[in-house]
C-alpha cells in the first residue's frame, strides 16, 4: 500500500487527527531541508508537503512567495529535490512525502516523473491544474504516485464529486478565499463544505490555508481528518535561517499536533 494511504488510514482508524506540514525545498538551503524533513517527522508531523519552487507562484501569499524566490536563488530544481528526498529515505521510510508545485515546473521535468516513487515520493499536488484532471490526463504516467486535489469554498457541488473521483491521496480543503497565509477563516462555512465533500468520498479530507494558531487548529480538527500548516512554518524557517536552529519550529509542530488531538 502507498505510504500516504497507509499513514492517513491508520490515523483515521485510531482516531488520530493528522498533521501535514509544508516547507519549500531549498529554503534556506538543501542541507537544512534534509534536516527539517527529519525534524518534522520526529515532531509528530504525519505527512510532509515539499514545495517545488516556481518563478510565478500565483496561489501563494508573500511569505511563501519569498521562500520560492530564496530557493530559486539557491539553484534548487526538481532533480535536486528528488536527491534530498532520497537521502531522507535513508533515515526515514515511514513519513509520506507529497510534492506540491505548479504545472510548468513539472512538465519541464517530465523525464523525472518515472523516478518519483523510486526516490521516495508518495504523492503530487499541482496547484494550478483543475482537480477533475487525473495525473495521467496531464502526461504523468506513474501508478504508484497518488494525486492530491484541492477543493475550495467556491467549488461547485457537481465538481466536488468529479474532483474526488480523480483523486487518490487525500482531499485538501482550502479553508478560505485567498492565497496561502491569508487570515479569514469562517468555521461555519468550513463545516458545511466538509460535510458535502465527505458525502462524495471516503478519502481523508484535510484542511489548510491560513491555519496558524493552536486554537485555529483545534477548531478545524473537529471538522476535518487533519490540518495542513504552511505559511507559519515557512515564516519560522526564514526567521531561523541565520543560525539554523530549528528547535522552535519543532516545538510549535508538537504543540499543533497536540492541539488537534485533545
Amino acid at each position, binding site marked *: 500500500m502507498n505510504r500516504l494511504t497507509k499513514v492517513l488510514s491508520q490515523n483515521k482508524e485510531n482516531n488520530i487527527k493528522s498533521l501535514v506540514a509544508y516547507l519549500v525545498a531549498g529554503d534556506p538551503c538543501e542541507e537544512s531541508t534534509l534536516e527539517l524533513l527529519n525534524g518534522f517527522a520526529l515532531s509528530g508531523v504525519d505527512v510532509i508537503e515539499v514545495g517545488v519552487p*516556481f518563478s*510565478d507562484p*500565483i496561489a501563494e501569499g508573500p511569505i511563501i*512567495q519569498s521562500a520560492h524566490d530564496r530557493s530559486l536563488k539557491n539553484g534548487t530544481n526538481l532533480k535536486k529535490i528528488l536527491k534530498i528526498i532520497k537521502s531522507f529515505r535513508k533515515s526515514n521510510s515511514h513519513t509520506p512525502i507529497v510534492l506540491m508545485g505548479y504545472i*510548468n515546473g513539472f512538465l519541464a*521535468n517530465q523525464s523525472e516523473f518515472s523516478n518519483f516513487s523510486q526516490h521516495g515520493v508518495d504523492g503530487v499536488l499541482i496547484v494550478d491544474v483543475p482537480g477533475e484532471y487525473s495525473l495521467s490526463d496531464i502526461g504523468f504516467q506513474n501508478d504508484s504516485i497518488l494525486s492530491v486535489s484541492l*477543493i475550495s469554498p*467556491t467549488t*461547485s457541488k457537481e*465538481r466536488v464529486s468529479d474532483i474526488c473521483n480523480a483523486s487518490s491521496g487525500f482531499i485538501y480543503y482550502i479553508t478560505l478565499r485567498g492565497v496561502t497565509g491569508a487570515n479569514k477563516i469562517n468555521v461555519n462555512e468550513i463545516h458545511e463544505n466538509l460535510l458535502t465533500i465527505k458525502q462524495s468520498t471516503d478519502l481523508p479530507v484535510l484542511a489548510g490555508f491560513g491555519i496558524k494558531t493552536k486554537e485555529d487548529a483545534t477548531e478545524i480538527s473537529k471538522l476535518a481528518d487533519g490540518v495542513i500548516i504552511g505559511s507559519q512554518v515557512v515564516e519560522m524557517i526564514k526567521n531561523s535561517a541565520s543560525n539554523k536552529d530549528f528547535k522552535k519550529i519543532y516545538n510549535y509542530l508538537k504543540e499543533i499536533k497536540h492541539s488537534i488531538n485533545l
Partner: protein
Amino acid sequence: MSSNYEKNLPNQEGYFGEYGGKYVPETLMLALSELESTYLSVKGDLDFQKEIDKDLSSFVGRPSPLYFAERLTKKYQGPKIWLKREDLNHTGAHKINNTVGQIILAKMMGKSRIIAETGAGQHGVATATVAARLGLDCHIYMGAEDVQRQSLNVYRIKLLGAKVHPVDSGTSTLKDALNEAIRDWVTNVDDTYYIIGSVTGPHPYPMIVRDFNAIVGRELIEQANNNFGKNPDAIIACVGGGSNAIGIFHPFIDKDEVELIGVEAGGEGIKSGKHAAPLNDGKPGILHGAKSYLMQDADGQVMSTSSISAGLDYPGVGPEHSYLKDVGRAKYLAVTDQEVMKAFHELSELEGIIPALETAHAFAVLPEVCSKMDSSQNIVLNVSGRGDKDISSVASIEGINLE
C-alpha cells in the same frame, strides 16, 4: 494556406489546438465558469450588441479611420501602406474596445469591484475609464518598473479615481502585475470582476478579449473594400499578449489571400536572449492560466524579459497566436529596440503620427515586408496606440532633458 485552420475556436474546453485551457487555482474555477456562461448567454443578444455599439460610437469614437500613408508608401516604393487608426480612440489605444465590453459583463454579473493588470498603463487607463463611468471601485496592478517608465499613465489612472498598486515582486513588470491581480481575484472573488487586458489568461478570457477587439478587423473589411476594392494583401500588428493583433487578424483568418504578420519585441536581439519574443524564441509552457509559447528555462522557470516598451515586455503570448503560428496561418517576426526607435521617428516625421513604442514595433518590419511587394498591393498596419505616454521615456533614452 490556411486550409488546416480549424474554425470556431476555442473549443468547449477553451483550447486552440493544444493551446489555451484553464490552469488556475481551484478558487477561481467557479468565477471562470460563471463568466463563460454569462458571456455565452448574451453574446448573440441584440440588446447587448446595441449597448456595446452605442458606447463604441458615442464614447470611444468608432469607427476608427483607415488612413493612406502617402509619404511612407513613397519612401518604401512597394505596396500602398494604410494605417488603421486605433490611436484615435478615446484614451489613445485599442485597449478601450475590450474594457467597454467587459465592464458590461461585470455589471450584468453584479460585481462591485474591478481589478486589472497593466504594463504600458493603457489598459489601466481604459479600465479606470469605464469603471469611472459606472462609479465602481477600481484597482490597477502595475509592475514597479512600469510605474516608473509610464508615469504619465499612472497619473491618468489616479485622476480617473482608481488606485494603482505598484508590484515589486519578481521582475517588477507586466508578468508580476498579472500574478498580483490573480492573487487579488482569488482573495476577493465574490464581489470582484477581473478585466484581463489582452488575449491571455485562462479560458474564456482569450475568446472574450478577442471578440471585443475584432471590431477593428470587421471595420477594416468594409474600409478596405471602399478604399481599394479588395482585402489587404497583408496585415501587420505588434504582439505583446496579442489583443490588437488578434483583433485586426481575426475576421481575415479564413481569407487565405491575406497575409497575417505579428511583430514581437526583439529587445536587444533574439541571439542576446534579452527580449520578449516567445513565438520567436520560446517553447510551449503554462503561465497565467493558459498553455502557450513561453520564455522559460530548462526547469520551466519563467525567464525575465527585456523590451523598450512596457506593453510588450511579457514572457508569454495569447494561446490563439501559438496556434496560428503552429498551423502556419500567421507569421511572427521580431524587431530590436534600436529598429523600433528608428520606426518611431520615421512615422512621426513622415506622417505626423507619434505612435506608442509598442505600435512602433509593427512599423519596424516595413523595410523587410515592403521589399517583397509591389505597388499593386495594399498592406494595413494597426496603429494600436498613440505615443503621448512614451514621450518622456523616449527623451530620456535619447539623453534629452525635458525639465
